[in-house]
């Protein structure tokens, strides 16, 4: 499949819509010898908190003219019980005498003219770092600051993302197999908009890769990591085994998502559509309007033809249109653009290796061998670098799910906070090539304080 295969084909009243995402498939081993820590041990240590009461101490530095004897005397005069001198300068860590807290000791030290600065010591901790063996090859996660994001929010199965695509390798059914690194991933009942049954199995590769970007099982010692990896997924098959579909099928898929209920509520808060075509459809627009009115954020890929405007459904006003950058934060050469483009995420470029890791700079996730899939084998799972706006959109969809879990219920607010916290790329402010810029998940998840 070439990038040009993303173009829409119009036949009478039917518009064929293709999956977006050029394919390059240098496969890497699922386990390349990296040993993993036991996740349970690591999590228990984090939950236990620090053994030392770091916050009761004070850091104080003296001016260069102050010798050690004077410094120690000043510490005692201020109410410090014990001071430990840094090996690299006249900086001390001081424990206060009983009856004085760290803040009080800091104030006393700050009042002394010989003190350069004084501050209460603070606790820091290791960021959540998944132990998945391929995490280090997932440069897109580092580009969006995923480690800090995961400290704040990793999702929850009470919030789901519907993946409208070629299906997902989410169950063992007939010739289809569940992908191995979906072990801990929660799936809601799926929908096949072609057969109108619940088996939304992937017979292409594309949907499984897209779904893995959102919620591949993470911190399980193997494979790759997903962005919103505790979020549930709903597989909805609207593209056929060649990666094509039509507006009527897409509208059907969206309506299924909107009408879905589990225990009286609809857990789906986000729809991801890594697909597009050039024709505006009233059926799709109406279905999207119903979804947004129901509180569902709709995300779609801009298109892979490097043209303006972006494809539909991304071009609809209430859909978040996502373009693609490469590892250098430069617009990917295939990424479509225009007035409807909203945000950027790393979709990569398999023809480049800017981090010189010997691997193409695509987005690495699990899926199955597309060549074997063409011959009816859907169990040849591996990890594939794939590039395209198809790979960028699910990163934004995953962030939307995390924001919904964090407490933002309105799709307009979810879009607004992502746009306002984006890293501005290209011309200052919003522009047609980068939209509002590259998503910064940790910044978005922080929200706003009273005055900051």
């Amino acid at each position, binding site marked *: 499949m070439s990038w040009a295969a993303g173009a829409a084909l119009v036949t009478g009243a039917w518009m064929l819509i293709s999956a977006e995402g050029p394919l390059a498939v240098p496969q890497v081993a699922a386990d390349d010898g990296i040993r993993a820590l036991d996740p349970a041990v690591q999590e228990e240590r984090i939950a236990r908190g620090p053994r030392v009461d770091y916050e009761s101490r004070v850091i104080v530095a003296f001016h260069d003219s102050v010798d050690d004897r004077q410094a120690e005397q000043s510490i005692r005069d201020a109410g410090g019980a014990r001071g430990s001198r840094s090996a690299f300068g006249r900086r001390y860590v001081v424990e206060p005498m009983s009856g004085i807290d760290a803040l009080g000791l800091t104030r006393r030290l700050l009042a002394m003219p010989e003190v350069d600065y004084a501050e209460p010591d603070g*606790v820091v901790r290791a960021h959540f770092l998944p132990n998945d063996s391929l995490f280090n090859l997932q440069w897109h996660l580092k580009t969006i600051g995923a480690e800090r994001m995961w400290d704040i929010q990793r999702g929850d199965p009470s919030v789901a993302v519907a993946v409208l695509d070629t299906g997902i390798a989410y169950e063992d059914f007939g010739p289809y197999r569940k992908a191995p690194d979906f072990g801990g991933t929660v799936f809601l009942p799926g929908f096949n908009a072609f057969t109108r049954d619940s088996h939304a199995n992937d017979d292409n590769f594309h949907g499984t890769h897209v779904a893995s970007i959102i919620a591949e099982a993470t911190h399980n010692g193997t494979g790759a990591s997903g962005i919103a990896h505790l979020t549930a997924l709903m597989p909805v098959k609207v593209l056929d085994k060649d990666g094509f579909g039509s507006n009527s099928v897409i509208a059907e898929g969206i309506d299924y998502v909107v009408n879905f209920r589990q225990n009286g509520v609809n857990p789906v808060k986000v729809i991801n559509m890594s697909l597009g075509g050039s024709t505006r459809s009233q059926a799709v627009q109406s279905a999207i309007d119903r979804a947004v009115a129901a509180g569902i954020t709709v995300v779609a890929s801009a298109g892979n033809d490097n043209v303006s405007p972006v494809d539909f459904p991304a071009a609809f006003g209430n859909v978040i249109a996502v373009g693609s950058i490469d590892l250098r934060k430069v617009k990917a050469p295939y990424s479509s653009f225009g007035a409807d483009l909203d945000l950027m995420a790393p979709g990569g470029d398999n023809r480049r290796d800017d981090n010189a890791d010997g691997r193409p700079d695509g987005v690495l996730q699990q899926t199955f061998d597309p060549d074997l899939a063409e011959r009816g084998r859907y169990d040849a799972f591996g990890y594939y670098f794939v590039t395209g706006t198809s790979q960028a959109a699910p990163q934004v969809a995953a962030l939307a799910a995390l924001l919904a879990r964090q407490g*933002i219920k309105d799709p307009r607010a979810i879009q607004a906070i992502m746009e306002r916290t984006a890293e501005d790329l290209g011309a200052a402010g919003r522009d047609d090539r980068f939209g509002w810029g590259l998503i910064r998940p940790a910044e978005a998840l922080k929200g*706003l304080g009273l005055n*900051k």
Partner: protein
Amino acid sequence: MKRAFSLAFAALLLSSGLAEAGTFAVSFDAGLRAMSNSPETEKAIFGEKRGTGAGLGVSYDRNSRWRFAVDFRRVSREGQRAFAIDRNSEAFQLGHPLKFNLTEGVASASFLIGQIGPISPYLTLGVGRASWKEESNIAGLIEKSDGSATLFEARLGIERQQGPIRLGIEGGLTMIPNSVGVGGISKVYEETDIGGLFVVMKIGFAKR
């Protein structure tokens, strides 16, 4: 702020030296304090949680009509970080704890209206300085912000004196213009004043 209160104290002491029948008092107060001058900001960050504050002050009754005082008080509130698209939009709380502390120092003059039975009503106007700090905890990372601004205050109170003890209740409005609104949710709502209505109970100890 220090200079303002030094001057206020000096005036207080000077007038005490000149007056023959003056009364000194020390008072403590506690009560509810709203950020009602920025109602949307208050609702977004603090939800339905009320703000509580406590303070202490010294006062000097120059005669039966005029009282001069200096008061200090601290208001502590706990809320959450939030997000809203614009001033007409719903705010969503994001679960990250936010602590807000407001410290106020006020120099004031009260007009003692007269005696109604055992009750003495009075009207107070004050000016002072407010300093505030907010501190958010975002998954273990602390974000801080602070500032200070001039405050203006109007209060209406009643008190009853029995021997040296004064018991009273005061309600009023504090205005702290241009104290916030440069960022955060207050900027979204275009609200700039963290003052508001308050009601406090007071107890004082007077010595002639």
